[in-house]
């Protein structure tokens, strides 16, 4: 295997830490798994969306009559068909949602705010016909000035996206309208004084472009608004319960009228937490006479009109003393929220200095609206931008001080009891352990990997370098609910509500199996609809294996307790006297297996079932340290990744293969962001590269094998020590790649992506 596993303590588990085949695996390799767009209902219509060709315009009129008259067209809708939700911020699970923003993002009312903003939708008997009908809708626009750049949008004379938006500064609202929705500040100690006294100070400005999650499955939704008022929704979502609430609010129906069935989901990375199509499909279904309507985005729509993550401008200043201790850090961060407030800038502010112990800190964070799609979450939202900036500056500090870059990070690394930049104190964390694992990895001491662009090694224009960077993510606990019922053959049916986006059916079932003392194969997990299980927070925040896993553990304990009681009944002893070891119940020489007990359940008191709901806040943050070797063709500006190693504190790897996979996938996305991925707009705000041809995510040929080191510093807040693992690995790559490019070429890249054109420019070649 590519990875290795370094555990601080290793209790003996029977199931945890093994690599079984996932329960949904066969269906997924044979094409039988039903993803959202695979849902087929009798009499189903196909819906398509008409989207704005302007980045900012007032809608003067919409004429749908010609489209309605086209044979085969069953319904046409516009923003006027929807109720207008209040401008309220509703609690939704742990988080909040501005329902008006969400509703207006799904379909524009008086104004379009970005290229691709939905304006109208059609349902017809075939997809091609629905598309033809869109061409018959006449929309009259009054174009408005466009603002695309975060710094320009902050200027007092910038065109305003929302005339009623005021800057919020921790409860205080500005008098003048502004594109700056929010300003936050974290401050501790005295940065000015510390900078004045520092031996070395480095200050730089960094820019990043808007990027997309790039999941391969486009957004989709199939909805039947039935004649009895019941609304059935099938879709690909990370958040069935939250999306159910969003749909209810946007349609202004009680949540109980909606049943949402999460289909298999083809990737999300944060991009499938909000609704886009479902409310439109619902309204089309109703208007078409209660017929089911399926809507699937094409790739251009996915890129132009879903929820990419923010472009940003980040200024970082850091200082260190002669001994190599970081004494002060300051950051000014402005993130593009897209068309509605809500960029991940506050998360970025939490990430930017998180791995380090720094006494004097000031961070200012601005959330800024621009005429681009409403930013969604993307794997460690805001984190990659932030760490690109801080990890570049840290590399430069280490260089100026003449200290090895990993040594410098370890020297300043945060430990249990250290204070985060925003104040609170860390509990048990494994940053130092992850950094030491990277340092000890053979990669770090090996000579630079051989060239790929120039196998002969003769071309002096091809230069190689190595870089390192660290990353942090908060992780999240959230609420999970699940059911488990024992079958008469001793197997367990597990009913859960966390969509399985990357193998979590396996990691949850493994925890139940471990807890109860059965084999992994004896647990049959199923992800069910919102009527069939209690509330679950989203599959996101690296929380499912932690949070839903916690519930699975508790279910195992509850079932075990009931089984003890049944055994006690059989043997006429008290339940406390019954011993359990690996699925074998015993007392005073009596022994009985779970299978035997299960077979007797109806004669010992009936079904054995457990349900539970639980939320833990002790999820424990994650830290990763990455090493990359790369080469730069200094004549073309092209970068080739040669070798990559990611070390991360994963708490406990329940299914190590899928933990490795999370690290490898995060690294691949981070490399794509570092090198080539970006939204390219023209001056009028038209997205120019809305395809997988020109929005360049890495191919198999762009990446090497990705080595992983799973460092296990068990999280004391989980029975098996689990921490979230999915998000941390996308945080370090951009910084690591930038640092390696510097070490190869002597040039500091301060803009993402570090595309060939930008590298050529930085090298002074063009």
């Amino acid at each position, binding site marked *: 295997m*590519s990875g290795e596993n370094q555990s601080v303590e290793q209790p003996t588990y029977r199931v945890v830490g093994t*690599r079984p*085949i*996932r329960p*949904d*695996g*066969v269906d*997924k*390799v*044979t*094409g*039988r*798994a*039903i*993803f959202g*767009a*695979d849902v*087929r209902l009798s009499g189903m219509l196909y819906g398509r969306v008409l989207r704005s060709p302007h980045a900012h315009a007032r809608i003067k009129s919409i004429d749908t009559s010609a489209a309605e008259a086209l044979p085969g067209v069953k319904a046409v809708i516009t923003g006027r068909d929807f109720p207008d939700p209040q401008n309220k911020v509703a609690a939704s699970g742990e988080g909040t949602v501005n329902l008006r923003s969400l509703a207006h993002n799904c379909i524009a009312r008086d104004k379009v705010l970005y290229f691709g903003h939905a304006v109208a939708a059609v349902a017809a008997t075939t*997809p*091609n016909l629905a598309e033809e009908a869109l061409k018959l809708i006449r929309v009259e626009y009054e174009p408005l000035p466009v603002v695309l750049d975060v710094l320009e949008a902050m200027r007092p004379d910038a065109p305003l996206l929302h005339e009623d938006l005021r800057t919020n500064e921790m409860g205080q609202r500005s008098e003048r309208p502004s594109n700056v929705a929010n300003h936050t500040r974290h401050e501790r100690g005295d940065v000015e004084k510390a900078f004045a006294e520092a031996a070395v100070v480095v200050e730089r400005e960094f820019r990043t472009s808007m990027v997309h*999650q*790039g*999941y*391969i*499955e*486009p957004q989709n939704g199939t909805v039947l608004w039935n004649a009895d008022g019941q609304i059935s929704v099938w879709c690909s979502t990370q958040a069935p319960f939250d999306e159910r609430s969003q749909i209810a609010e946007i349609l202004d129906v009680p949540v109980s009228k909606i049943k949402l069935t999460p289909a*298999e*989901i*083809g*990737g*999300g*990375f944060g991009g499938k937490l909000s609704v886009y199509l479902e409310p439109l499909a619902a309204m089309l279904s109703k208007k078409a006479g209660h017929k089911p309507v399926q809507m*699937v985005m*094409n*790739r251009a729509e996915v890129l132009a009109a879903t929820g990419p993550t923010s472009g940003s401008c980040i200024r970082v200043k850091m200082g260190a003393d002669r001994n190599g201790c970081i004494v002060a850090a300051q950051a000014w961060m402005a993130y593009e929220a897209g068309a509605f407030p809500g960029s991940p800038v506050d998360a970025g502010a939490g990430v930017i200095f998180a791995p380090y112990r720094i006494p004097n800190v000031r961070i200012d964070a601005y959330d800024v609206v621009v005429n681009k799609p409403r930013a969604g979450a993307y794997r460690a939202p805001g984190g990659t931008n932030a760490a690109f900036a801080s990890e570049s500056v840290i590399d430069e500090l280490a260089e100026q001080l003449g200290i090895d870059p990993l040594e410098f990070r370890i020297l300043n690394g945060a430990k249990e009891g250290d204070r985060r930049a925003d104040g609170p104190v860390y509990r048990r964390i494994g940053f130092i352990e992850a950094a030491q694992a990277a340092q000890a990895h053979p990669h770090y001491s090996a000579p630079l990997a051989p060239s790929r662009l120039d196998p002969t090694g003769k071309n002096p224009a091809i230069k190689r370098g190595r870089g390192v960077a660290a990353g942090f993510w908060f992780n999240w606990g959230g609420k999970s609910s699940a059911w488990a019922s024992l079958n008469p053959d001793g197997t367990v049916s597990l009913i859960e509500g966390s969509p399985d*986006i*990357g*193998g979590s059916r396996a990691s949850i079932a493994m925890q139940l199996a471990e807890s109860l003392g059965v084999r992994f194969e004896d647990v049959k997990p199923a992800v069910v609809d919102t009527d069939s299980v209690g509330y679950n927070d989203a599959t996101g925040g690296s929380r499912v294996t932690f949070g839903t896993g916690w519930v699975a553990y508790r279910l195992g304990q509850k079932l075990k307790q009931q089984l003890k009681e049944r055994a006690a009944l059989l043997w006429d002893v008290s339940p406390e006297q019954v011993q359990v070891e690996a699925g074998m119940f015993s007392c005073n020489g009596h022994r009985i297996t779970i299978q035997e007990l299960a077979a007797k359940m109806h004669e010992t008191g009936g079904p054995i079932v457990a349900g539970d709901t639980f939320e833990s806040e002790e999820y424990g943050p994650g830290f990763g340290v990455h090493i990359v070797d790369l080469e730069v063709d200094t004549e073309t500006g092209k970068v080739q990744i040669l070798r990559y190693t990611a070390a991360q504190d994963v708490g406990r790897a329940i*299914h190590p*293969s*899928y933990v*490795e*996979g*999370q690290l*490898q*996938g995060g*690294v*691949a*996305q981070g490399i794509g962001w570092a090198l080539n991925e970006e939204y390219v707009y023209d001056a009028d705000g038209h997205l120019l590269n809305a*395809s*997988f*041809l020109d929005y360049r*995510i*890495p*191919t*198999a*040929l762009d*990446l090497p*094998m*990705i080595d992983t080191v799973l460092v296990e510093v068990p999280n004391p807040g989980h029975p098996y020590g689990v921490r979230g693992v999915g998000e941390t690995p996308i945080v370090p790559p951009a910084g690591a790649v930038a640092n390696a490019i510097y070490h190869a070429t002597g040039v500091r890249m301060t803009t993402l992506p570090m595309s060939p054109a930008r590298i050529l420019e930085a090298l002074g070649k063009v």
Partner: protein
Amino acid sequence: MSKTLVQARINGEEVAFVCEPNQTLLEVLRNTLGLTGTKEGCSNGNCGACNVILDGVLVNSCLVLAVEVAGKSVTTVEGIAGPNGLHPIQQKFLEHAALQCGICTPGFIVAAKALLDHNPHPTEEEARRWLAGNLCRCTGYDKIVRAVLAAAEVLQAAPAT
């Protein structure tokens, strides 16, 4: 628009369907024939999720008109497993955890089948080049490439029937 009757061999079965000229093979497989294992990722030939094998050649079914397959033979992901169970490629994908969300998996399985039919002993570099037209956003390709190379070894040891 007039419809055309098309007869083709799909996963070894003689199939007849009626389609319009502007319907792609992908659309007909999914919407007319109910073979939803073939996925739509980009509809423009840039992601490989809709890969099928057409008369022995790997193609994107989103860039083939359904009328063009008259008299031809099509293999989709549903036709990869044999009567006795999974194809070694499928088995190795499972053993190597070469899928996370699974949406790109059918395209990769079909592409890998075409690769190993064409080149039973690919190097890592050859496998990566062949699979470069299939995008995966979850795995970073590491485990996929390993699974394909492992399947090649199994097939070399005991050629599948």
